C-alpha cells in the first residue's frame, strides 16, 4: 500500500473540513494538509443548507441573547462554555466569510442583512437568499484554492483510522477511480464528514450522509455523544424529503392544517399574530413544530398526499416579488418537485429527518479523547446544540469549530513528532485484507438495498419523533440482527474502477453501527427532552438525565451507554417557553 506522509489529514471537505484546512494553512503555511473526501468538495452536503447562519452583528442584538436562545433551544443539554465561545466567535467567522467573498444578502445601506429564525429572540441570521449553504461552501472551496499547502484527495473514501500507541496517526482510503488503497499518515487527523441522516428513510440529507466519519471514530474507541437527539425539520416536501427552509417562515410563511387553521396556537406557541412574532408560532423551535405535526396527524387534521400526511406552508401573502428576491430556490423546488407555485398555492410539507445533534465526542477545542484525533461540524458533538439545534446555528458551527479544530490540530502536529512509518505499514495489512474479503466472499446472501431497507424501516419505527421502550427494544433487536446479516452482504460488483457497490457496502456498515448507537442511547434515556420524546417518559428529568450520553463501541456487541456531565455556567435549567409569553 502506498504510504503518504503529511502533517494534518482532514477527512471530509464540506464546510467544516474546508474551514479547518484554511485555518491550518493560515496558521502555518509550512504544515502540509491532505484534504480527503469521497466527493469533490463542492458536492458536499453543506451545499444544500438554505436559510442562513446565525451571528450577532446588529445593534439591537447581543451575545447574551444568542447564548440564551441557544441554551434554551437545546433544552439545557448544551455545554454552556462551548455555547459562550460559539456565540463570541460567530460574528467574526461570518465576517471572515464576507471578506472571502460570500455573497450575503444586503440592506439598502450595503450592510449585511439578517432574517429571523425559529427560537431566536432577535433576528440574527445572515443569509444569501435561500442558498446560504451553497454560497458558503463554494466560497470556502474557491478560497481554499489559494493555499498551496492544501493537497486535495477528491473521491477518496476513508475506510479506517490508523491508531498507534494510543494516538491517531492517519487514515486509510480507497482511491475511487482506481480502487487502489493508500495510507495517509498524519500527525493529526480531523474528521469533518457531516451527519448520518441517511440512516433514516425520509431525510433532507443527500445520499452521501452515511455516518462514515462517526463510524471511523466510534470504531477507534471514541464515544459517540448524545446520539439519541435526531432533529426532524418541520417542513420537508413529502416523498423526496427536499428541505423547504425555515427562512421561509422567517420571511412570514404560515403553517396551516387541512382546515386552514394555524394549528401551532394549540401547542403553546400562540398567539397567532398575522406577522412573524419572534419565538412564537411558525418561529418556534423545530422540535416543537415537528411534535405539533405528530399531534395534528393523530387528530386527523392533516391532509393526505400520495407520500403521506402533510400540512400546508402558506407563502402566498408574501407576494411574488419578495418570494423571488428572498426565496427563489424554495419557489423553484416547490414548482419542480411538488408541482405547486408558492406564489399561488400553499406547499404541502411534513417533518423530515434533518440533523444529528449528537456526534463524535469532542471538547471545546474539537479534540476527541483519542490523542491526535479532532472532529468538527455535524459529525461532532461539542456540544452547542444540546437536545435540539436552533435553525441557522449549524452553518455557523461548522465555521467556528472547523477553524478551531484546524488550529488545535495544527498545534498538536507541531508539538508531537511523526509516528514511525513502519508501524503504519503493519496496521494497513489488516485493513486491506478486510476490504479484499468483501471481493472474495462467495456465498453472501444479503443485498445492500435489502439490508438498508430493513434498517430504514426499523429505525423510523423506533426512533421517530415520539419513542417508547417497546418500540425501541424491537429496533435494538432488529439492528443487532441486521449487523449479523451484514456479515453476509454480497458485492455484485467486483471491479476496481469507481465501484459504488463497494462504497455502498462500506457506507451501510457505518450506518448500521451508528444506528445502533442511536437506538441504544434513546432506549436508555428515560425522559423527554428536546428532540428526544418518550411517550412512556413524557417529562424532562434533570435529576437523572441532565447528562450527555456516551455510546462506546464494543465490536459485535451493542454499545455500552455511559454518561458525562453537562457544563452549566450561568443559565440554570428552566422551563422552555415559547409563544407570546416568551418575551
Amino acid at each position, binding site marked *: 500500500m502506498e504510504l503518504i506522509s503529511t502533517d494534518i489529514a482532514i477527512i471530509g471537505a464540506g464546510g467544516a473540513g474546508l474551514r479547518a484546512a484554511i485555518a491550518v494553512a493560515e496558521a502555518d503555511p509550512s504544515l502540509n494538509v491532505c484534504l480527503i473526501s469521497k466527493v469533490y468538495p463542492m458536492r458536499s452536503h453543506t451545499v444544500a443548507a438554505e436559510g442562513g447562519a446565525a451571528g450577532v452583528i446588529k445593534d439591537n442584538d447581543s451575545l447574551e441573547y444568542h447564548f440564551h436562545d441557544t441554551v434554551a433551544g437545546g433544552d439545557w443539554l448544551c455545554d454552556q462554555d462551548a455555547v459562550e465561545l460559539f456565540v463570541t466567535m460567530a460574528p467574526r467567522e461570518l465576517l471572515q466569510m464576507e471578506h*472571502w467573498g460570500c455573497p450575503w444578502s444586503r440592506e439598502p445601506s450595503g450592510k449585511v442583512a439578517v432574517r429571523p429564525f425559529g427560537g431566536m429572540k432577535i433576528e440574527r441570521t445572515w443569509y444569501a437568499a435561500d442558498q446560504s449553504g451553497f454560497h458558503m461552501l463554494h466560497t470556502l472551496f474557491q478560497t481554499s*484554492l489559494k493555499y498551496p499547502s492544501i493537497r486535495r484527495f477528491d473521491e477518496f473514501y476513508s475506510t479506517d483510522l490508523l491508531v498507534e500507541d494510543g494516538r491517531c496517526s492517519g487514515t486509510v482510503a480507497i482511491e475511487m477511480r482506481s480502487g487502489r488503497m493508500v495510507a495517509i499518515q498524519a500527525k493529526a487527523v480531523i474528521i469533518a464528514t457531516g451527519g448520518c441522516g441517511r440512516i433514516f428513510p425520509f431525510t433532507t440529507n443527500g445520499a452521501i450522509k452515511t455516518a462514515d466519519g462517526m463510524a471511523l471514530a466510534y470504531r477507534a474507541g471514541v464515544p459517540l455523544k448524545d446520539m439519541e437527539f435526531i432533529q426532524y425539520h418541520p417542513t420537508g416536501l413529502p416523498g423526496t424529503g427536499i428541505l423547504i427552509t425555515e427562512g421561509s417562515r422567517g420571511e412570514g410563511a404560515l403553517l396551516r392544517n387541512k382546515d386552514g387553521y394555524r394549528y401551532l396556537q394549540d401547542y403553546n406557541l400562540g398567539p397567532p399574530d398575522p406577522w412573524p412574532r419572534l419565538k412564537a408560532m411558525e418561529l418556534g423551535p423545530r422540535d416543537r413544530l415537528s411534535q405539533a405535526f405528530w399531534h395534528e396527524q393523530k387528530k386527523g387534521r392533516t391532509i393526505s398526499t400520495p407520500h403521506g400526511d402533510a400540512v400546508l406552508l402558506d407563502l402566498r401573502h408574501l407576494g411574488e416579488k419578495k418570494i423571488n428576491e428572498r426565496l427563489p430556490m424554495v419557489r423553484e423546488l416547490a414548482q419542480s418537485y411538488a408541482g405547486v407555485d408558492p406564489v399561488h398555492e400553499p406547499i404541502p410539507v411534513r417533518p423530515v429527518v434533518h440533523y444529528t445533534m449528537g456526534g463524535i465526542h469532542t471538547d471545546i477545542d474539537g479534540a476527541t479523547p483519542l490523542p491526535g484525533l479532532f472532529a468538527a461540524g455535524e459529525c461532532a458533538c461539542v456540544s452547542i446544540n444540546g437536545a435540539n439545534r436552533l435553525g441557522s446555528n449549524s452553518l455557523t458551527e461548522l465555521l467556528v469549530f472547523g477553524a478551531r479544530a484546524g488550529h488545535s490540530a495544527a498545534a498538536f502536529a507541531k508539538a508531537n513528532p511523526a509516528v514511525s512509518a513502519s508501524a503504519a505499514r503493519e496496521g494497513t495489512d489488516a485493513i486491506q485484507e478486510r476490504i479484499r474479503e468483501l471481493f472474495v466472499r462467495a456465498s453472501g446472501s444479503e443485498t445492500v438495498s435489502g439490508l438498508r431497507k430493513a434498517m430504514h424501516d426499523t429505525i423510523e419505527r423506533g426512533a421517530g419523533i415520539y419513542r417508547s421502550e417497546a418500540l425501541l427494544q424491537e429496533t435494538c433487536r432488529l439492528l443487532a440482527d441486521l449487523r449479523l446479516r451484514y456479515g453476509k452482504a454480497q458485492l455484485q460488483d467486483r471491479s476496481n474502477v469507481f465501484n459504488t457497490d463497494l462504497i455502498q457496502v462500506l457506507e451501510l456498515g457505518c450506518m448500521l453501527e451508528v444506528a445502533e448507537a442511536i437506538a441504544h442511547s434513546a432506549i436508555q434515556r428515560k425522559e423527554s427532552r428536546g428532540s428526544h420524546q418518550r411517550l412512556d417518559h413524557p417529562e424532562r428529568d434533570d435529576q437523572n438525565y441532565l447528562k450527555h450520553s456516551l455510546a462506546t463501541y464494543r465490536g459485535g456487541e451493542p454499545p455500552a451507554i455511559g454518561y458525562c456531565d453537562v457544563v452549566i455556567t450561568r443559565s440554570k435549567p428552566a422551563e422552555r417557553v415559547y409563544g407570546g409569553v416568551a418575551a
Partner: protein
Amino acid sequence: MSENVTLEILRYMPEVDSEPHFQTYTIPYRDDWVVLDGLNYIKDQVDATLSYRWSCHMAICGSCGMMINGEAKLACHAFLRDYRHGVIRIEPLDHFPIERDLVIVMDSFMEKLSSVKPYVITQEKKSLSDGENLQTPLQLMAFKQYTLCINCLLCYAACPQCGLNEKFVGPAALALAHRYNLDSRDDGKEQRADVVASNEGIWECTFVGACSEVCPKHVDPAAAIQQTKISASLDWFKARLMPGADR
C-alpha cells in the same frame, strides 16, 4: 398492468469492456420520478454494478449531470414524465473522458476552475477589525447570477467549442472569473487576465450560447464571456492608445 419505461444506458467498465456499449433496463414508470430515481431503482433492484454520481436530489450539488436523449441535464431534475414516449437514452456528459459508466473524468475542469483564481484578491490586506465591506444590493446584483454556478458541467457538454478544443477554459470557469471581476470587493481582474483573456480563454468562445441554454441554475455564461471580451478589448485599446492609462 402498471406502466413501464425503458432506459438505454451507456455502460463502460474499463477493466472488462474494450469500448462503451448500451445496456437496456426496464423500470416502473412513476409520474413524480426523475431519471435519477430510475437509476436508483436499477442500482437497488436490478443491477448493482451500474455506477453514477449523485447526492442531493435537489439540483444544487451538481453531481448528476449526464446526457439524456442527447441533451445535457441533471438526472435529478429531468422528469420521466417529460420522456414518456419511447426509450430514454442516458450517456455520460459529452466532451469528457469516461471513467466508468456514467461517471466522467473531471480533472481538466478542476484545473480550469483553479486557473482563473476564483477568490477575492485585494490590493491591500484587509483585517477583520476593519468590519464588513459595504456592498449595496445593486452592487451585489452586478455579479450575483454568476455566483449561482453549481459546477455541474452541463455547459461544457453543451458547448461545441469544448468538444473541439479541450484546452478551452470553458463557460463555467470563465463565468466564475467574471463573477469575481465584477465583485466590488475584488481587485484581482488583472491577475485573472492571463488565463481569461488568453487564446484558450474568452477568445475561443464563438458565442453559440448553448452554455446559457442548458444551465439548470439560469446562469448566463455566454453573457459573462461577451462582457469580458468587451472589457478586455477596452483594456487593450486603453493600454495602447493611452499609455499609462491602464495603471
